[in-house]
């Protein structure tokens, strides 16, 4: 139970960072983000993604534009804003610190 909790916390923490990173690579559609996450073996259902994207967008880190689709309704394509890029850079630094911290802590462990 405790292990599960911690795992959830860890995954959640990096999920936003990953999403922001994926979007920073260029305009992208929500379900494609899922695809990218799957490739990264970070398993998330789509339903989780929408609240997250909406929140990031409302915080000004993301923006979106409507694009016509050949199948079904028009799609929302997300892209990162300059503010989002700034936050991402900060997160990059934090991430590197974290990686260092974790690796240092783990060093020498069997």
């Amino acid at each position: 139970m405790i292990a599960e909790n911690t795992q959830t916390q860890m995954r959640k923490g990096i999920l936003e960072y990953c999403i922001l990173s994926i979007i920073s690579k260029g305009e992208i559609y929500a379900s494609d983000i899922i695809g990218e996450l799957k490739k990264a073996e970070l398993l998330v259902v789509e339903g989780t993604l929408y609240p997250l994207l909406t929140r990031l967008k409302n915080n000004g880190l993301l923006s979106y534009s409507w694009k016509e689709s050949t199948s079904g309704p028009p799609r929302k394509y997300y892209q990162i804003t300059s503010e989002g890029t700034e936050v991402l850079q900060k997160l990059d630094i934090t991430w590197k610190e974290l990686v260092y911290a974790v690796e240092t802590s783990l060093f020498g462990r069997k």
Partner: protein
Amino acid sequence: MNKTIIININSIVFHIEEDAYETLRGYMIDIKRHFSQSADSGEILLDIENRIAEMFSERIQTGRKEVINKDDVSEVIAQMGRVSDFEEASEEEEKGQQSFHQQEPSGEEDHKSFPTGKKLMRDPEDTTIGGVCSGLGHYFGVQPKWMRAFFILFVLIGGSGVLLYIVLWAVMPVASTRTDRMAMRGEAPNLQNFKKSFEEEMEGIRENLSGANAHFSRGLRTVGTGFGEIFKFIGKALAACMLVVTGSVVFGLFFFCVACTLAIMGYQEEIKFPPLEILQPGQAFFALLAGTLAVALPFIALFYIFLRILFKIKPLNNYLSLGMWATWIVSIIVVIFYCVIGAQDFREDSIIKVDRTLKTQSVYSFSEKDVRVIEASSSADGKTKYDIQVDGESLHNLLRSDIEIRFESLDSLEKPFIQYHYKAKGKSYQLAAERASKINYQAEQVDNKVIFNSHFALGADDVYRDQRVNVVVYLPVGAKVEIMESLQNKIREIAYDNCYDNYTDESKTKQTEWIMTKSGLTCAIPEKLDEEENEEKDATQSE
């Protein structure tokens, strides 16, 4: 072969199989509930709906597969994720909205938890009388029918429930708008909830059509488990008891009505219901019918409510329930009408005075003769008194005992006499006087004995109109009087018991002796107060 439903997701039309639709609808309701408290719910839901529409579109192939089936829906849901999947991910980010989370993990517990932001209002969409019970049900998170059972219980225990209901009815406002209704259920009046409320209304309509089964499952869902089940069981047992009680009352009233009808028609005289005796037979029948309906209809309604609670029967159709209301109101009016009619016949009263002389005697002995019985000196079974029966009915039913006797003084030289005041009431003075004149009651004098009958009879066709007889016995001052014990209940203005107490234990007889003085009849035996004191003294000395 499958029935398909046409749905519209964000202006795109899909054909969907019925069972697939059920699954999808359930899923969407879950999702809406889940996101209903977050500020961006509208946008999130729109995104989700859009995505579902897109996934459906991908699955449709014109000419080959044009209908969304259950598998498609399951796959889409799997991809989108269940509400339980979101929770794991969103737990952290919604820490600020913890309260919401505790309340609504699966959309059920909120019904059980005590209300915080709910408003106490009457629910016009779920009424039996005024929607008070359903409103209370919403407020306390209990199904309305249990509140109803509770109220009915209180009505039956001393009727306090009626008053409580009326007070609550007056105090609680009606939830007439959708915003009110949402406040009543404790939902925040945001757009999402509006949508939900509307959808639930539609759902309600649909479920009503699809019948009892769907209703039952919804009931199960809202009541929840555990405590709810126990509560439900107790409620059911209670409802069953009440069903039996109300059923018996209706049953009993029916037989009462039949018996009284027979009595009015003269077939059977065993059962008497005093108010009906006041009325003429023709009126009495209608009064009885109206009275019985006025009492029985509410019980019939209660009986039906309990039947509904227990067996999930459909509500009465409007015409029938309206008809019942109308009948009830009419019967109440008829009862009031006959009350007035009956009371009118008591409006005027008349007194007829008749004087009869008494033969002068040295001692007057007043006694009573019980006209209801024949006294037999002895008989085989040891009975000394027999009831007199007239046409198979005990005589005393035809008799009235409203007789009062007073004693007044006359000058010692005047001749004694008895004055009779015959009283009766009627609609008019003439009627009252006529009735009064029909009273046939006089004392009989045999030597020094003056015998009063215990009762007087009403005429065979006469109805009871407060007929009574006041007797005033005028005796000259100095006359000696004996009053038999049997007469004491009819005597007014003198204290028979006090005089009786003046006798010593040995000398106590079935009569008391009196002497007429200027101020009225006084006890011939002096008070024995002193004796008693002496006795007490003796007692203390001997100790």
